């Protein structure tokens, strides 16, 4: 299977904070381009039809304006939209892609123009072969125009604030009656283990019943081996409830709860 080198672009802010931008792969870009190409075709045919009406009055001028309009639509579409829509054309909007500066800064006009003008070489010898190959080989999934303009195309998945509090809200947690054990638990469990438990709880509805049982059994066993709680506190708790209580103790602070 062909493996594209694109994954993420890691940026580091002056404050020392690193974050990743997910790079768009060639196929999603191809899809966005197909939408844009279709739109350019539709625009050209609309403009052509309108100017054909003008041709009844001034035929020569209408033909000249048509030629120039086609040229401007072809080259200006990407430039205008990417500039006005901050790195997006209609195709990129639909596929949720955006052109950004490779250093994470705002796009400059010269970057937008250059990456669009260099389509002239990316499109060679036809069907964006040069650009496509460059995109597949480049570690940042850049076609030649992106390379010259120092831009990358990133995916913009919709990120909303996750609501984790609902996971633990209003539930009795018997483990909290032993604060010293809870403190030990928070010391012993690593962040990675806590994350696994949290993700297992968040995604539990998506799991196959057998897999769900097996996963929570394994997690419960692991946490029990780290810090054993008295049996009277865990009696009657299912493996999943046990993991949920442990996750709450680990990730939701040191509240003391009386039984």
């Amino acid at each position: 299977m062909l493996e594209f080198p694109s994954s993420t672009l890691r940026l580091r802010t002056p404050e020392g904070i690193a974050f990743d931008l997910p790079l768009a792969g060639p196929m999603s870009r191809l899809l966005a381009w197909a939408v844009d190409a279709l739109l350019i075709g539709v625009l050209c045919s609309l403009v052509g039809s309108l100017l054909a009406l003008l041709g009844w009055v001034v035929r020569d001028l209408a033909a000249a304006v048509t030629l120039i309009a086609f040229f401007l639509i072809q080259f200006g579409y990407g430039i205008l939209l990417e500039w006005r829509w901050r790195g997006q054309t209609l195709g990129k909007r639909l596929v949720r892609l955006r052109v950004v500066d490779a250093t994470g800064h705002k796009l400059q006009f010269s970057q937008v123009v250059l990456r669009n003008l260099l389509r002239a070489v990316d499109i060679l010898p036809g069907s964006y072969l040069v650009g496509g190959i460059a995109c597949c080989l480049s570690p940042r999934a850049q076609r030649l125009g992106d390379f010259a303009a120092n831009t990358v195309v990133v995916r913009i998945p919709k990120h909303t604030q996750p609501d984790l509090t609902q996971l633990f809200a209003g539930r009795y947690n018997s483990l909290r009656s032993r604060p010293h054990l809870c403190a030990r638990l928070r010391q012993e469990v690593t962040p990675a283990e806590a994350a696994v438990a949290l993700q297992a709880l968040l995604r539990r509805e998506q799991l196959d019943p057998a897999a769900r049982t097996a996963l929570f059994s394994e997690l419960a066993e692991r946490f029990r081996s780290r810090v054993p709680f008295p049996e009277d506190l865990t009696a009657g708790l299912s493996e999943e409830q046990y993991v949920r209580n442990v996750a709450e103790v680990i990730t939701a602070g040191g509240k003391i709860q009386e039984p």
Partner: protein
Amino acid sequence: MILDLEQFLKSGRPLWTELESMVERMEENPRWRPTLPEATRLHYLYERTAADLGRLTTFACEPSTSRYLESLVARAHGEIHDRRNATDRFRPVREFFQNFPRAVRRHRRCLAGSLAATVAGVLFGVASLLLDPDSRYATMAYGHDAQTPSQRVQQEESRSGMGVAGAQAQFAGYLMTHNMRVSLTTMALGMTGGVGTVVSLFYNGVILGSIAADYVADGQAAFLAGWILPHGTVEIPAIVIAGQAGLLLGAALIGRGSREPLRHRLSAVRTDLLTLVTGVAGLLIWAGLVEGFFSQYHEPVLPYSLKITFGLLELVVLSLFLIRGGAGTDGPDANPIPPP
């Protein structure tokens, strides 16, 4: 140590929401400028959110919150660290009349390289036609190999201007867009390290040289000068300047003699590339109009002397424009990047 996620989310959420709404406002209206208190608040929120992301990454592995904060910090980072300034606004008239001649002069070594490639092509075209007349079928384009220059002159003079009568504007539009495509391709081929640009310029030169040699050898030099000069004195320099842009791009790519990283080299020439392309477009619009509405009229409608004088006058004006234009509006011309 594991982060108290519940407390962390409770304390951070209002600030993240506030930052998100400010970033959305800036994204929706790029011209929005915050007041000092708003800017201070924005900076605080950004730093606080960035610090939250740092804490979350270090002390907890909660991917959905991390992704959300990463995306928010990335957006805010892009808005806050803005490298644009007032001069980044594109003003085509100023670009053409002030920045364009200066950009041409600033990269004169690339211009010399582009001119040399074109002249080499012209000489090759002349030599090939004189040494091997049959090469005209390979070196000539646009139907010039279909008839002899004398036949063409006779045909053109008999219908002077009638060949495009009623379609001058369409012809001019075709020439503008066609030449613009050729120029853009020549510039874009700079991404081959300038090799593609040189090949394109050389090929254009070969066509020009072989056609010129053909007409001169057939005793039609006056017709040729009267036909080519009115638009060619602007069109040919425009293509050469497009080649200059291509070589500039190639030079930045190769970076011979420069210790700057590739990204910086490309960034350094980006604005000049845009300026050169703007200038080329302006020149080609003029050349297209002249070729469509003036060059196609021959004797007896228009005397060749008039057309030649007009062409030479244009050449003088263009030369003066490129040599003196935009002078005094900026510091001394420099050539930071040598040609490949």
